[in-house]
């Protein structure tokens, strides 16, 4: 048994979670337990999907060839490995999909994005996988910015992003682009060419109010576009960039989620960035964002 801290919560785990910060906290908020999971699913599912079932406060998930997971009440993840699966793969789903569901169950708003510290607050880079969220976060880290979150930007009821795990996951090509020595990094799974880039210095361990969100997009043209999104138009991008949005209905959380999105829309500045999908200068994009952050007066 080991205890860790993430998202402002104390996590007690049967499995070693090397990506997380250790903690001595006696209080337990979330338990990760190796145990038996019903292979057939939930007793009374509200929604049955291809590999998951959902009910109020319950998620049952089967990732073929990896594991079965049962996530309940915002405080417990039970995992049963499939024969022959490896621990690294299981942990990725615990720290991703399962922890996302735990946060939903705790009524936190989870944006699919990375968060960095800017001034006394933070900004989030959101967008579909492959749009460059982690690349940007890592590039900002190299420029001396602190990192709060990679992939799951968990926003608490005070509108603050809670620190997640002190690492950024980077694909081989991204690490190379950032001139990071790959031979010093560990693969997140042996099956893929993606690495854990540990954030030793510059991980922000305190929650910070979210000031802005950038939604990342790309197109087959050469220009970078920055389009501010105002008023009620902010709602849909927030909804659409919510982590695993399709789980919320089955978890019985759709109404609360709408409310949380509306609250967040009032709190933040939102900008859509469209960048070239082909080769482009990462530094150019970082500098354009820095200029925009200055314009937004977020460095104070």
């Amino acid at each position, binding site marked *: 048994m080991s205890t860790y801290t993430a998202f402002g919560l104390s996590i007690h785990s049967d499995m070693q979670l090397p990506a997380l910060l250790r903690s001595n906290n006696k209080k337990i908020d979330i338990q990760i337990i190796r145990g038996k999971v019903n292979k057939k699913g939930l007793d009374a599912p509200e929604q049955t999907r291809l590999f998951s079932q959902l009910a109020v406060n319950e998620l049952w998930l089967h990732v073929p060839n990896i594991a079965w997971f049962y996530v309940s009440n915002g405080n417990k993840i039970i995992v049963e490995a499939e024969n022959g699966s490896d621990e690294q793969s299981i942990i990725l789903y615990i720290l991703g999909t399962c922890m996302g569901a735990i946060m939903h169950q705790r009524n936190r708003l989870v944006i699919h994005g990375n968060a960095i510290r800017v001034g006394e607050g933070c900004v989030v880079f959101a967008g579909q996988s492959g749009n460059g969220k982690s690349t940007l976060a890592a590039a900002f880290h190299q420029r001396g910015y602190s990192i709060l979150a990679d992939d799951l930007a968990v926003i608490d009821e005070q509108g603050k992003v809670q620190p997640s795990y002190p690492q950024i996951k980077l694909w081989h090509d991204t690490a190379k682009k950032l001139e990071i020595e790959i031979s010093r990094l560990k693969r997140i799974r042996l099956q893929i060419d993606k690495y854990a880039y540990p954030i030793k210095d510059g991980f922000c361990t305190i929650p910070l109010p979210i000031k802005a969100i950038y939604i990342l997009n790309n197109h087959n043209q050469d220009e970078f576009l920055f389009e501010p999104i105002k008023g009620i138009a902010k709602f849909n991008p927030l909804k659409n960039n919510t982590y695993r949005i399709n*789980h919320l209905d089955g978890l019985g959380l759709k109404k609360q989620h709408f409310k949380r999105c509306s609250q967040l829309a009032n709190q933040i500045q939102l900008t859509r960035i469209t960048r070239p999908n082909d080769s482009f200068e990462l530094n150019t994009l970082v500098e354009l964002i820095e200029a925009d952050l200055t314009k937004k007066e977020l460095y104070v």
Partner: protein
Amino acid sequence: MNQNTHSQANIYWLASYPKSGNTWVRAFIANLLHEEPEPVDINKLHTGAIASSRAWVESALDFDINELSHDEIDLLRPAAYCRLSQQMETPGYHKIHDAYTYLTNSEPLIPAQATKGALYIVRNPLDVAVSFANHNHCSIDKSINKMGLQKYSFSSSTKGLHNQLRQWLLSWSKHVVSWLDAPDLNTLVVRYEDMKQTPLTTFTQIATFLELPNNKNQVTEALEYCEIEKLQMQEAQKTFNEKPAKTEVFFRKGQVGDWQNILSDSQITTLIDDHREVMQRLGYLNVHGELSTTPSYNQET
């Protein structure tokens, strides 16, 4: 070929090797379904997602697939297509460039249970080679080489994430044969050359196969809206979202036989040597192995 009777089969696959007329067919379908008296915007050819869309496949699963290998994702694709097909209320028309292949567990990538039909569009490889070079922003020799590779694939990098899943194209010949000989699929094969030379007949046949409006006026009007000149005119006014970044224009010429002006004798010889059997099967070479001047093909033979 077998008609399949699965009630949950709602997907029509628009299958082809790249640069064989797939986008033209999608523009035709979009215009046929469009009720306004004007051509559909080239950036709104929403006939259905491409089979290799990462987002589409992931939407059917309930977990992230971004940290799975290409082979691991492929094993999930048949179940995803069955699920997506089940959820459709009306048939979807989905482009696919993957060859018809079998996975490591011997299951086909394209499940018959999800497939209402497969329209296979094929084009003379001599013309494909020219167009494919433009599309890939490479020399014609390179394009010919790619078409001959037995295990050619798109989006197969293992070092980064692509919004398209890996697609095994195989060689041009293997691609064609994989679909033409796919068991348990209701398949219609059409040739690009017939789409150009006898458009009304060929597109009526396509519309009928895809259970789309197929009367003469509707087909004629949809065809007018997606004439190559009109698509080119639209592309001149705005960027086509599906154009690769380095390619100058997507809707290039759309001609039959342009290879005669472009390919060298040795390039022609290489293509014929690489694809003789399948070119003969499709009528691009006559029985003596010579280039057909008036190619004909009857898929029943």
